[in-house]
């Protein structure tokens, strides 16, 4: 599978690495070139050595997405730090580039819930944290 991940923070980089380990083709895009460091295993082995791709670019710029391989992607994950950015680019991936599987990280539970109703596959870390905390704190 070809997986494109936009946003190379903690979540994006970790998912990228495990996807590559699992034998998938993985391309990561981030606006910050320094974020690449999260992908390197150690000082001697880089992300590219391991077979990964990395593109510097802004997610809303279609040229950057194409360079990162969105036209070939089977899976697209939007994991930048901006909820609205993630929600917009995942709709672009879905509607304009017809990527079959689109996953979007949304920190705000309200927006995550509504866009899930609209047919986006949303992941809401905040909601997960709330549920875990409730379980730990409120279970007798």
């Amino acid at each position, binding site marked *: 599978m070809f997986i494109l991940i936009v946003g190379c923070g903690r979540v994006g980089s970790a998912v990228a690495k495990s996807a590559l380990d699992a034998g998938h083709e993985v391309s990561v895009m981030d606006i910050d070139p320094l974020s690449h460091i999260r992908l390197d295993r150690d000082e001697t082995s880089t992300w590219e050595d391991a077979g990964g791709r990395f593109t510097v670019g802004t997610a*809303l710029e279609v040229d950057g997405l194409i360079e990162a391989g969105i036209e070939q992607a089977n899976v697209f994950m939007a994991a930048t730090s901006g909820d609205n950015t993630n929600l917009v680019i995942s709709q672009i991936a879905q509607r304009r580039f017809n990527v079959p599987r689109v996953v979007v990280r949304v920190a*705000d539970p309200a927006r995550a819930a*509504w866009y899930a109703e609209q047919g986006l596959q949303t992941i809401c870390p905040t909601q997960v944290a709330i549920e875990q905390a409730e379980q730990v704190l409120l279970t007798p």
Partner: protein
Amino acid sequence: MYVIIAGAGKVGWNLARELIAKDREVTLIESDHDRFRVVEQELEHAVQYGDASELWVLERAGIQRADLVIAVTGDDEDNILISQVAKKKYGVQRIVARVNNPRNLTHFKMLGIQPAVSATDLILRLIEHEVPEYGLVQLLALEEEHLEIIELEVLEGSLVVGRQVQEIALPEGSLVISVLRAGRGFVPKPSDTVASGDQVLLILDPGLESEITALFASTGAGASA
């Protein structure tokens, strides 16, 4: 009419002022606290502090009863999201969105956010209007109504030069509405003759531009239309 404006930058603040002066009920939403304080000094309760892409902030502003939502923050993602939510979740009838980066205009269109206004685009069109060598200028595009008005200069040697308006084989769905000649505009009669150097205004269905250009502004053999 109740209007919600997201973003109290120069555009949002001035829009709020103008609309309030016209006795519209307005709520302006601003997420930057310092900016909010400044604007609040003038607009008082008409401005609220908060992130307009948060649903509860929109609900607190009364989006359920809004007739018009204007998304004019400095972030295109935010403007897209606010417009989308206003329209689809809360059923707001009318939306106006600002496009900060004209390259993002395609995203607004693809996601059905109309009208999307780009200042850069508007200024570019004005420049094109002033500088005729650009050829065809789109003066007005009503996307939903499928109608546009264009202006183009009649080139020497093109098919229409010396023809009467009624003789021009315009494609169906287009009409010459005005001719500008020597700094003066007039609505042509069917028997008026088109000359090279005229600026011609046409109203047309979108998609006919290339056929029109072939008639009015093409000198080559390729002008078979």
